[in-house]
């Protein structure tokens, strides 16, 4: 269509500019505030231009608030969730789409049911499960009267596995892989079978390479999700050194009875949002595909 609409074009650009400004303004102020000194943030009105204290503030944040450790924790949790969830769900999806075996539908439904309840609605019992993973065994033991089972204690509080495993317990990724596998042409599998490939060879040499773009797209989304976790790390870490960066920020929030340290908070916020933002900026083409395809 060769349409000339100069006025509407201008209005559209204006709308998009305002939208982009509304997105950028808070981020810009994080940068500005993070580079001011304690005196400068208390001045009214606050400066709209960056100060000179960014590196000094960053050093304070990394040393005093132990933020280096928290960023590392965030990375371990996000990577753990990404790798764990992808590997567990890709093989589960392979099993339910490419194998006929007894109770196939039962297995599928059990996985599928977990799509329905977010972790937020069952936090207390999930916490109890993580506080002692052996709890169900103990209950079973007390029913059966086996004393050895009753005192089992396997505590995941303040551990990486406790922070990671319960967040893997949902089947969104399995569901996405299942949908993708159903679109793979049957001829590929037939040909592989005629050539004498074992199921595992078919999976490793044909199915996995075909799913590469889905895996990358999903990995980005899962990494962002893992990095930005809040509720679960808040509950499961009593040791401040095991918290993730987002939880660390909450601890830096100004309290009413002390001198507000907005400059440190904002500097830490900048450090925390930098890795996921870079992921989006660099990999946005894949990210959009993953988002729209998976409906996450």
């Amino acid at each position, binding site marked *: 269509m060769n349409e000339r609409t100069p006025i509407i074009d201008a209005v559209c650009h204006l709308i998009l500019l305002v939208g982009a400004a509304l997105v950028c303004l808070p981020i810009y102020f994080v940068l500005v505030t993070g580079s001011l000194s304690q005196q400068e943030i208390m001045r009214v009105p606050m400066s709209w231009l960056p100060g000179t204290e960014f590196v000094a503030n960053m050093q304070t944040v990394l040393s005093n608030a132990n933020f280096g450790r928290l960023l590392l924790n965030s990375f371990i949790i996000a990577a753990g969730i990404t790798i764990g969830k992808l590997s567990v769900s890709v093989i589960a999806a392979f099993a339910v789409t490419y194998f006929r075996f007894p109770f196939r539908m039962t297995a599928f439904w059990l996985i599928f049911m977990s799509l329905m*309840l977010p972790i937020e609605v069952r936090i207390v019992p999930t916490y109890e499960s993580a506080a002692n993973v052996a709890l169900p065994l103990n209950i079973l033991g007390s029913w059966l009267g086996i004393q050895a089972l009753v005192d089992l204690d396997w505590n995941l509080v303040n551990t990486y596995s406790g922070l990671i495993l319960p967040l893997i317990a949902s089947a969104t990724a399995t569901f996405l892989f299942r949908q993708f596998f159903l679109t793979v042409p049957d001829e590929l599998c037939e040909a592989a079978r005629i050539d004498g490939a074992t199921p595992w060879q078919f999976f490793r040499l044909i199915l996995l390479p075909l799913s590469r773009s889905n895996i990358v797209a999903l990995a980005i989304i899962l990494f962002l999700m893992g990095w930005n976790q809040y509720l679960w790390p808040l509950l499961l870490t009593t040791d401040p050194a095991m918290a993730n960066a987002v939880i660390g920020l909450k601890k830096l929030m100004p309290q009413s009875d002390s001198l507000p340290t907005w400059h440190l908070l904002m500097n830490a916020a900048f450090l925390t949002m930098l890795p996921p933002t870079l992921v989006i900026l660099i990999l*946005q083409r894949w990210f959009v595909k993953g988002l*729209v395809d998976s409906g996450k």
Partner: protein
Amino acid sequence: MPARNSTAALPVAAGGGALRLRWPFRRLLLKGDGQAESGLKRAHFRDWRLPFWLLAPQLFILLLFFFIPSIRALIQAFQLTDPFGATTQWVGFQNFERLFRSGVYWSSAQVTLIFTIAQNVLTLSLALLLAFASNHILRGRGVYRTVLLLPYAIAPAIAGIMLAFLFNPRVGPVAHMLQGLGFDWDPNRNSWHALSLIVMAASWKHICYNYIFLVAALLSVPQSILESAYLDGAGPIQRFLRISLPMITPTLFFLIVINFVYGLFETFAIVDATTRGGPAGATSILVYKVYQDGFVTLDLGSSAAQSVVLMALALALTFAQFRFVERRVNYSV
């Protein structure tokens, strides 16, 4: 345009617009497979040991951290446990009766309703406006879209903290502008101000998500229809309102459901990092109250009963989601 590659995932025009209500999961499972056994590839392996081991890790994790906790939440909802866990008593529906008689709970439900609706309206209308604008212009699309994607990367808690700072009555630049205009802004005391603060933070974070889906949906509207409307003399706005918008209604419905899920369950971090439910419970949305009653006041029975109510809500929303998701399921990615 990366989104163009994935537009096929939104078969907006498919289905002839007939909104037939059927059992959503059955439809979803049977659709597109064409085999006797649903969801099984026509070319498949017959083996039962390998799939057992392939499924074992997922089923084991789900058992420990999904099924057992969910069932325990259901059981606890009918029990009364003292805060130190010494005694547990079976009380039937007493927790629910107590919950539904509690004025605090209803006001929390009311706050949640206002919050989710306001968030939905704000998010969706702005995302629509932005999607229309970026669909219309030709130059600079990619740059705008990259910028508008940024909030997706930023944690809800950080979004809350950023806006809490901008709107902080003592130091915040935006709060100063409001005060300069003679507006007595103070989210620490005024409950409506606090509520609008978390609505803004939640929307800021979620507009990008709605925007991506709307851009993708708009790209999938058939060009031929738009062109014939153009030849008949319809302008861009008219074409958008009369053709594009009706054709993307499935996406709109899907986004409304997703926005409710987001508002109900994923905004915990925003509330906890900024207002902590205050002032005087003005921003204590339902998820926040489950946490407060479960971990702060240690009223486990009430917290479990609230969990069960939220589970019912989550189930209802999931069913609604699949009503719309099935239209987006695409077998030719």
